[in-house]
């Protein structure tokens, strides 16, 4: 299990994370079960908890921080294809390719056999 982030975050967006190194590149698999009682989801929306699309990006950010301490720089493209509701298990699989000053990441989130989101993003190394 991944702990509570030690940086500003709306919620813990990763329950478990597997990272597999392939040379300079790596593949990660992040899992999160949507908890409708989580404070953010009470507000999004009252009476109907929906995991906000932007939290798929939060899941990717927290996974990349945990794996290589990288920070999101640009979301090149993201598409939200199906909503995630209370109790749904989202599995986000991503490949991170090492480039000169960071990583190029391509990810896909699924709920069972349904693709819920596709994302391409660039991450940079933590400057701090």
């Amino acid at each position, binding site marked *: 299990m991944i702990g509570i*982030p*030690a940086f500003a975050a709306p919620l813990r967006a990763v329950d478990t994370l597997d990272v597999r190194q392939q040379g300079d590149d790596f593949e990660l698999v992040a899992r999160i079960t949507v908890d409708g009682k989580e404070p953010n989801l009470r*507000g999004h929306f009252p009476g109907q908890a929906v995991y906000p*699309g932007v939290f798929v990006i939060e899941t990717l950010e927290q996974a990349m921080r945990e794996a290589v301490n990288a920070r999101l720089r*640009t*979301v090149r493209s993201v598409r939200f294809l199906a909503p995630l509701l209370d109790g749904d298990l989202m599995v986000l699989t991503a490949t991170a390719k090492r480039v000169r000053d960071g990583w190029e990441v391509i990810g896909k989130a699924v709920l069972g056999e349904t693709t819920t989101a596709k994302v391409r993003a660039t991450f940079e190394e933590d400057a701090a």
Partner: protein
Amino acid sequence: MTGHHDIRILLPQRYPLLLVDRVLDLVPGESIVTIKAVTGTEPCYAGIPDGAPASSYDYPKSLMIESFGQSAALLWLDGRAPVEDDDSTLMFIGARDYHFTAAARPGDVLRHEVRLESVLADTAFATGRTWVGDRLIATVTTLTATRRPVRPAA
């Protein structure tokens, strides 16, 4: 100018995920300027341990995008409250080239400038920038939203 009480009528999100404080300027069908004040009492800062570096207080990018998206929704809604018996919700369905150029921290006021590029059927395309004072925080080429039921009946 639209105050927070009006924003609550127009947007379905609630605490802690209602991320627009005030509308500064609205040109119907064209553009909107909104602000969101970031404070140290935001829930996103609650879990940070004492002694953490300054960058730990960078406002989450996911929330920055959500705040921008809610501003775009206010532009699209153009002061019209959602229809009560309509079960569809305004949903953020995608973005292209959302680029972060600087961080925002407690005490900063995010200013979103959103321009509506086009509306095709029930789908809207917006573009814009986010500032803190004269410091550019983020740019987005295209943000896409649509109106649809949360989960269509199977």
